[in-house]
């Protein structure tokens, strides 16, 4: 088991719960141990950076400081969310590049009894760890149910391959790592031209028409290439393409039905993990049909809808005429 410090980020506990569940279900198979940073806080996403510089970096800095304090056998922080990954990497990089930033961030951290020396941690994305530490050979050796016949569009989005401060990826715009991983699972991988294009990010919240156009481009391209599903590494991408697909369809009078799953869910399926443990059923655009085509049964809904048990099996008391006995009693 290789040990890593883990920064999950807020989305893993809410909108990207399926990502978290599937990661928890496969990390043992991959031989990676993830130790969560104790009492981590939000990374500020792309919002805080646009409001106030030093507080934004101090917010990220607290996570780096906590991680560095907790680090013993490993100095590698793994993030599964793209925005979290970039923010942690960015703070570490810019604090190194511009000492005055490091000085100010540390002055702020000192108010909370913390400090961080830039460069003392290695910030990496989960996909990078799986590709480069675990390795494709290991992944291939764990496959028991190859995803044969499933046409997958590998979708990385922006913030994992770019700006790539440490040059960890094969290319900033057309990296092949996710393609190779999905191929190792036995899937039929399409050469998706928009694999690192933008999902709209927070524009679904502040400028929906801008976002819908970006989402439409992705859906149209994946559809043209006859993909059965898209596979992503990013909670925001999943959320925008999945939860806003209906609104995008309404906006453009289109009828796309493109499921988008986390790459860890597909890994779980290929490793033979029960799909129920992999967060299937949480997606808005159902993957049931696509997975069914390769003989994998996945739940369409989260859990079977059961009526809550009533205290009295008979229901509400009904009025009765005097002298008449209530049949329900």
């Amino acid at each position, binding site marked *: 088991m290789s040990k890593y410090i883990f920064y999950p980020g*807020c989305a893993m506990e809410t909108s990207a719960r399926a990502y978290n569940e599937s990661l928890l279900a496969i990390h043992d198979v991959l031989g990676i141990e993830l130790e969560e940073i104790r009492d981590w806080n939000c990374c500020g996403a*792309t919002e805080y950076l*646009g*409001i106030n510089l030093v507080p934004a970096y*101090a917010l990220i800095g607290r996570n780096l400081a906590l991680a560095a304090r907790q680090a013993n056998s490993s100095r590698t922080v793994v993030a599964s969310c793209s925005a979290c990954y970039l923010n942690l990497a960015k703070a570490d*990089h810019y604090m190194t*590049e511009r000492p005055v930033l490091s000085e100010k961030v540390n002055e702020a951290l000192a108010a909370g009894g*913390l400090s961080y020396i830039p460069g003392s941690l290695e910030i990496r994305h989960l996909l990078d760890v799986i590709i480069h530490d675990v390795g494709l050979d290991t992944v291939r050796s764990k496959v028991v149910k190859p995803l044969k016949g499933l046409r997958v569009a590998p979708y990385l989005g922006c913030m994992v391959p770019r700006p790539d401060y440490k040059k960890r990826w094969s290319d900033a715009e057309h990296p092949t790592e996710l393609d190779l991983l999905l191929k190792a699972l036995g899937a039929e991988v399409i050469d998706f031209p928009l694999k690192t294009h933008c999902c709209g*990010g927070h524009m679904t919240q502040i400028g929906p028409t801008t976002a819908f156009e970006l989402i439409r481009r992705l859906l149209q391209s994946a559809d043209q290439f006859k993909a059965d599903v898209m596979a992503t590494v990013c909670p925001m991408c999943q959320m925008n393409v999945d939860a806003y697909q209906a609104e995008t369809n309404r906006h453009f009078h289109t009828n796309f039905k493109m499921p988008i799953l986390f790459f860890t869910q597909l890994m779980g399926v290929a490793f033979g993990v029960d799909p129920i443990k992999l967060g299937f059923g949480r997606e808005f655009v159902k993957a049931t049909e696509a997975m069914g085509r390769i003989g994998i049964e996945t739940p369409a809904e989260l859990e079977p809808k059961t009526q809550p048990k009533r205290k009295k099996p008979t229901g509400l008391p009904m009025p009765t005429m005097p002298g008449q006995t209530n049949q329900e009693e």
Partner: protein
Amino acid sequence: MTTQPIPTNDPNPNVRFLEEVSARTAGVSRLEMCIQCGTCGGSCPPAEDMDHTPRMLFALIRAGMREQALASNTPWICVSCYHCVVRCPQEVHIADVMYTLKSMAIQAKLYKDSTAPDFSQTFVDMVETYGRSYEFGLATRHYLKHFPMRLPSMAPMGLGMLTKKRMDITPKRIEGMDQLNAILERAKTLEVV
């Protein structure tokens, strides 16, 4: 290669606007190195919705046109996709300059549409209260104020988020809230310039 602008003693602050934007940006912005080639605008997915392409915006900054630059919607449309950043032949930290311009526009109250600054501020309010993002609170507050007409079409999605357990009604609060607040309060008194 130097990335520092030539120092000037001009009393007009707009003459030093480029320098100010550059200094307020997180890393070494390299904004002074822009050669106006236009690769950024040509790489930008939402460029058609912008008042100015990044190249045009940088020309405004260099010309000292402070108000026009800070009133531009360009930084608010930027989706932080970093296509321009990796393609820029001068390695200008374009996305980070956009963050700087947003914060300066907020300070100068020069933004034209409050939707995006309000969203960022609400997000930050949640983080400063709980230490975590709180989507339910953020979404309800934001949509009621800025997109009430979108609510009917959004309702099924919001409900889906709840029933699929992809959104919590109650916020999660970190233990070290006092520590985080102390850090942020101190940070708000600090600047990198």
